[in-house]
């Protein structure tokens, strides 16, 4: 019998997955900050016209990496993992729903028992779904505003409020997402997964126990 040695850490995201995440993150944050100035007059006025014009140029430029770069990285570098991620995100089990119900108490620091989770917990799934839908809404409303001559005037007009609303919803999602990954005492270790690519076995066992069980079982040679 082979003496099994458990790894200290588990690989969570490949280099391509991480690059895809960060290309989306950086372009989105740039778009959000420059876009808010183009929507809320107080912010725009504080910049002055020249500043706002510059923000507008950044906003238009960043539309390209936001729309295409992440998709390209994921399609070329991690097609299988991306499909797997999408599959998991859109598969909701009973334990996902009970996680969502129980999580708010944990978020505010109260003790709760959270159901066991797979590679992505229900909150991460929700974040992924909102990000994907938001991405589609933002590009569907953003490009018509950038090339108004190619679209109907009615579509261009209604793209403006929808784009603004989508931006604020995604901004709120980002605030929660970044806080949980960087500062929240329970989950901030997860940031390592997106930076180095791996997380400690200990953290994975507490937060993603079903995933840990699955990959350790896969690695173990089937006993005769």
């Amino acid at each position, binding site marked *: 019998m082979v003496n099994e040695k458990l790894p200290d850490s588990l690989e969570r995201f490949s280099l391509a997955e991480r690059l895809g995440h960060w290309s989306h993150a950086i372009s989105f944050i740039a778009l959000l900050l420059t876009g808010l*100035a*183009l*929507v*809320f*007059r107080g912010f*725009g*006025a504080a910049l002055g*016209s020249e500043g*706002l*014009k510059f923000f*507008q140029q950044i906003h238009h430029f960043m539309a390209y990496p936001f729309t295409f770069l992440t998709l390209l990285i994921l399609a070329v570098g991690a097609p299988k993992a991306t499909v797997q991620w999408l599959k998991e995100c859109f598969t909701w089990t009973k334990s996902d729903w009970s996680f969502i119900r129980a999580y708010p108490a944990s*978020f*505010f*620091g109260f003790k709760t028992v959270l159901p066991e989770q797979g590679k992505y917990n229900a909150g991460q799934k929700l974040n992924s779904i909102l990000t994907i839908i938001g991405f589609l809404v933002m590009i569907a409303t953003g490009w018509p*505003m950038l090339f*108004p001559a190619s679209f109907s*005037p009615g579509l*261009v*007009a*209604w793209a*403006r*409020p929808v784009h*603004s*609303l989508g*931006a*604020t*919803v995604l*901004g*709120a*999602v980002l*605030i*929660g997402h970044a*806080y949980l990954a960087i*500062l*929240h*005492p329970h989950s901030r270790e997860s940031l390592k997964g997106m930076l180095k690519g791996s997380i400690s076995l200990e953290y994975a066992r507490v937060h993603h126990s079903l995933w840990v069980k699955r990959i350790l079982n896969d690695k173990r040679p089937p006993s005769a």
Partner: protein
Amino acid sequence: MARLAMVLDLKKCAGCYACVVSCKMENGTRPGVNWNQVRTVEWGEYPGARQTFIPTQCMHCDNPPCVKVCPTGASSKRDDGIVTVDYDKCIGCRYCLSACPYGARIINERDITNFDGKITPYEEEGYRVHRLNVVEKCTFCIQRVTKGKLPACVVNCPGKARIFGDLEAPDSAIKKYIEEHQALNVKGTGIYYVPPEGLDLAQLPPELREPAFVSWWQDVVHPVGKTILGIAAVAVAGSLVINSARKGE
């Protein structure tokens, strides 16, 4: 206070386009950029067929939707009623182009001149003011009006179909004209028409109604969006405070 306004007496308009030409001359707009237009309307059958001309332009609305959506304050409503665009502040975002119900605004992005590869001294002068990539429209010839002169289209109208003035001035000539000729106000705007007999009034520009997307955007999405962002920030701050307080326990 003042309320500058214009009457367009369609009974007197001969459709000569002198207003369109004089506007271009006075304001030095680029080829293809017209701040006012003349629309031809025909109705009836021979021998009773009729034709009239309807000049259109910026309506200088009471509550202009273009001003409401402008993110920089470049579009504004002056105390005298004129809606202006400050070219220094305009970033060419086109929000006002979508918001104007009358299609009175235009953004010129094409660097075209009247003669290929040449620029006349007249154009040089005009294009210094009318830059590319900013939004333009009729200003009631603000450069003339503020000096006590009449707009170019009014002065140059051979039929005297255009009457310009201040509705709130004592002994206002335009007000008298409106009463005498029963001019119809396009509600919510500073433009009046004297329609000829038989003209379907639906052919005139409709009364001002703010486009639905403008109200949704400015009155719903803006406050809702700020609230959503605020709730997320408060939740994070609350979590941060509670978690660090518990850590100390």
